[in-house]
């Protein structure tokens, strides 16, 4: 019994569903009262838009073609700017050359836009700017006519950067950085002081140019950084002259280079020959060879030189003498 009712229910539900699907909507019934209309699934007709013809933009001829030959280039290109093909009247070409093709032209050329250009710094523009700045300059001291004299009288070189922006802030954080260059030979240092100075400055010293570079950027203003740099130079100089008590304990292992006169080799040579090392014949060549071997690193050449020196020292026959 129960099963029968459930079946009836099922039937009913299906029929209602069917009915609802076929029933037309109320609005449709209103419009299509008098006229039989074909089924229009896509609704193409009805609201049809009339396509407005596209208004064509008038393409101007490039500005380069309208430029007079004797124009003032400094006013056309006043400041640094990325490349503009329509502003630069030059047939510039750059970029990857495909096989059989020409070098890409300047229009829409990303390669040209990427690289920095100096079109704002043409010689006449530089000349004009220098002329404009001249009234702010003082004449160069006549006595300082050579670079050597400049270096002698002004051993400290201070470098800072100033920045100019068209932004609300007139300050740039990079302008606080101060770089001080000093030639080491201009400082009065003895052997110990120089060694200590170099250890203190570490990698700030360039061996090839003999220049110590100190860069300060820890304080907020340029003035403070400059003062700090000057303080550092003073402190380094005086500190390197101080000989601490523990520095006397420096042993051979702490030496930065091999010194034969302080080495164990010298004592053993003196013990071997039973006299002062400078009285031993051929000692000069031997000590030089050993110094080279230890300081320049070991290689076939240095080892061979050392061998020759030892043979001379011990009066052994040289290699070439075997045949005799």
């Amino acid at each position: 019994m129960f099963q029968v009712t459930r079946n009836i229910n099922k039937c009913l539900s299906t029929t209602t569903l069917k009915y609802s699907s076929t029933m037309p909507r109320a609005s449709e019934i209103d419009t299509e009262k008098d006229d039989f209309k074909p089924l229009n699934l896509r609704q193409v007709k009805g609201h049809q838009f009339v396509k407005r013809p596209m208004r064509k933009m008038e393409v101007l001829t490039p500005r380069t073609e309208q430029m007079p030959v004797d124009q003032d280039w400094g006013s056309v290109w006043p400041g640094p700017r990325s490349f503009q093909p329509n502003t630069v009247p030059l047939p510039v070409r750059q970029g990857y050359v495909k096989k059989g093709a020409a070098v890409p032209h300047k229009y829409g050329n990303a390669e040209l836009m990427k690289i920095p250009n100096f079109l704002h710094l043409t010689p006449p523009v530089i000349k004009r700017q220098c002329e404009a700045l001249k009234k702010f300059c003082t004449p160069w001291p006549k006595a300082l006519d050579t670079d050597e004299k400049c270096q002698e009288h002004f051993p400290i070189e201070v470098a800072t950067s100033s920045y100019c922006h068209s932004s609300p802030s007139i300050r740039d954080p990079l302008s606080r950085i101060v770089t001080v260059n000093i030639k080491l030979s201009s400082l009065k240092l003895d052997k110990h002081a120089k060694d200590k100075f170099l250890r203190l400055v570490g990698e700030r010293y360039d061996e090839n140019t003999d220049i110590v570079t100190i860069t300060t950027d820890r304080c907020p203003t340029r003035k403070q950084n400059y003062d700090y740099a000057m303080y550092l130079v003073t402190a380094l100089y005086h500190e390197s002259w101080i000989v601490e008590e523990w520095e006397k304990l420096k042993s051979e292992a702490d030496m930065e280079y091999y010194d034969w006169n302080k080495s164990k080799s010298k004592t053993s040579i003196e013990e071997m020959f039973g006299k002062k090392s400078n009285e031993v014949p051929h000692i000069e060549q031997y000590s030089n060879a050993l110094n080279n071997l230890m300081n320049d690193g070991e290689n076939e050449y240095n080892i061979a030189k050392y061998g020759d020196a030892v043979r001379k020292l011990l009066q052994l026959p040289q290699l070439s003498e075997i045949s005799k």
Partner: protein
Amino acid sequence: MLKSVSSIHTGICSKLIRTLSTALNVHPPEKLDNFRCYESNPVNHTIHNVAQFYSLPPEDKALLFRHGGLPKTFETQCKTFNETCIMIRKPALDVINSLKNIDYSKPPCKFVLYGVKGSGRSLSLAHILHFGYKSGYLLVHVPWVGDWMRRCKESSTSVMEKDYIDLNIDAAMWLTHFKKQNEHLLVNKELKLCQEYVWNKRESTNKGAPLTELIDFGINRIKYASYCVVVLAEEIKQLSKAGVCKTLVAIDGYNAFFYPQTRIFKEKKEVVHPSKVTLTKAFLNLSYFNWNNAAIVLTVDEIAIGQDDYPSNLPRYLLDKEGFEHLDPFVPIPVENYSSKEFLSCMEYYKERKWIQYYPGMEEELAFISNSNPYKLLELSASL
């Protein structure tokens, strides 16, 4: 009669040809007339024998190298060839020449053989050792220090010296080796101890006892063998100083005495530094300069220290600062790969031994592949 006529005829012919020859300054390619040197006594080898092979007499070999001294691969090859032939090369001749000309009243000269792997340092040392044997030196020869520092048979704390480690079996083996090598010299009555050594309550070696007694004691009482070596080293120094004997110290793989990473362990598995090994003490003492009437020939070898990689094979690197200072001043002697002359001589020898089957262009090919390295050549020619 007929014979003499014909000989005259040929004589004239050859003379005629020589005078009438139109070719001027014909330089035949440098080739050895003979790759063998029939002089088996290294004392008589000269620069003209370079690149020739001389045969080490079996009785000498049995005496010198019974307990090691020749590389293992070389031994195998010798067994195959049924003779022990060593090439006479420049480094060995150089040392031998120097040994002949040294002023023995001065502190000992030190020679350090160095070179790339397989270039023939050990064989050059063997040649020098043979020379030493033939010219009556007392030989103090260590076949391979690496055996002590890297694969010692047994180790124990020393009874005689505090904080030291003894390599008992190795020391006793070395004493046997020493005894064997110097059999003929140890009969000399003058070789006697200049000090009394008390080993324990019951055992002691008297002053004036022959050197053999000390050696035999070391061999029999293995516990004291290491210290015996130390004592022996000191006694040899004293005897040499007194002029009783002339000593040749030859140590292969000497740099192992200074490389901190040994494979000798204490009871708690701590690595023993070589300076804490009794045997090291003995041989460092022998290689020091404070005696005379001796010469020292050493080799430095990267294999002796067993590093993972070998950045350099030069003596300063291998000996380290400590070792370099200990030896300084020494004569570094480079042992290089074969020169073209030596290489061709070696190929001739291999051909004669029917070790390789010849085909044209073989020399160039092998020289290129092996880079004229003696050991590489030995390896490569094994399959040819």
